[in-house]
């Protein structure tokens, strides 16, 4: 196995563990501020994985759209509301947390098992060589041909969300004054 491969492996391992760790961190920090930060880390590490999967455009979008725009909005809101802490694992019926972990764990195990079953089949042998290169050009082409409609719909969804944000936000705005 050549050096490049080893390098890829090392990068992958780092990224993967960063991803997992930050994921855990997001749901275990009591302060949403930290959680948001670790989510950024998580997204970044994901971007790396995307790169390794040769999805350059997606990786870029991940960093720009997510780590950039979305998370900034998150942090803004969190800052705006003031980081109210809540201790995880607390509240609700006592069986809640346990059951939650059990359910999540069950799903995890099942998916792993499914993948494992799959390894017996076609999943292991080397992926096709003439793979889709995630270059912006190819992406764009797909967006304009096969997935034209999906592209448009996405924009509509964003429009709807934007309007919704405006409405809800304006609700908030009119409130402090006794009568809007």
């Amino acid at each position, binding site marked *: 196995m050549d050096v490049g491969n080893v390098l890829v492996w090392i990068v992958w391992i780092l990224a993967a563990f960063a991803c997992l760790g930050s994921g855990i961190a997001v749901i275990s920090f009591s302060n949403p501020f930290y959680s948001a930060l670790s989510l950024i880390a998580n997204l970044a590490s994901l971007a790396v994985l995307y790169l390794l999967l040769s999805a350059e455009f997606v990786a870029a979008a991940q960093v720009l759209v997510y780590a950039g725009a*979305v998370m900034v909005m998150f942090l803004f809101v969190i800052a705006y509301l003031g980081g109210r802490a809540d201790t995880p694992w607390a509240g609700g019926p006592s069986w809640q947390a346990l059951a939650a972990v059990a359910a999540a764990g069950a799903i995890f195990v099942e998916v792993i098992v499914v993948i494992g079953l799959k390894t017996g089949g076609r999943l292991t042998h080397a992926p096709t060589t003439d793979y889709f290169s995630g270059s912006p050009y190819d*992406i764009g082409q797909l967006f304009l041909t096969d997935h034209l409609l999906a592209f448009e719909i996405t924009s509509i969804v964003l429009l709807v969300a934007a309007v919704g944000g405006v409405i809800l936000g304006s609700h908030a705005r009119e409130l402090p004054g006794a009568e809007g």
Partner: protein
Amino acid sequence: MMGPNIVWYLCVSAFLFTTGAAGVLIRRSPLIILLSLEIMLNGANLALIAFSRYHGTGDGQIFALTVMAVAAAEVVVGLGLIVAMARRRLELDVDKLRTLRG
């Protein structure tokens, strides 16, 4: 360049997905629940991209991109709701949202 097998990516995505699910299940702050939802979506995205890589078709990546946009939309609405709640002096704790029950 070869790099690790698809299977490993899938394991990571599965882990992420379930982590996010667990987050939704155990956290009470709506903010963090939103974050956990993001993690779930990203887990799914990773799987999509991995498969797209595996099958050598672009559909997965396109799907992933649209999912990003949709996730952003959800976040917008979610945050809007949270802000509105905060403005109405509602405590940011989903366990306190129990006027509707039974």
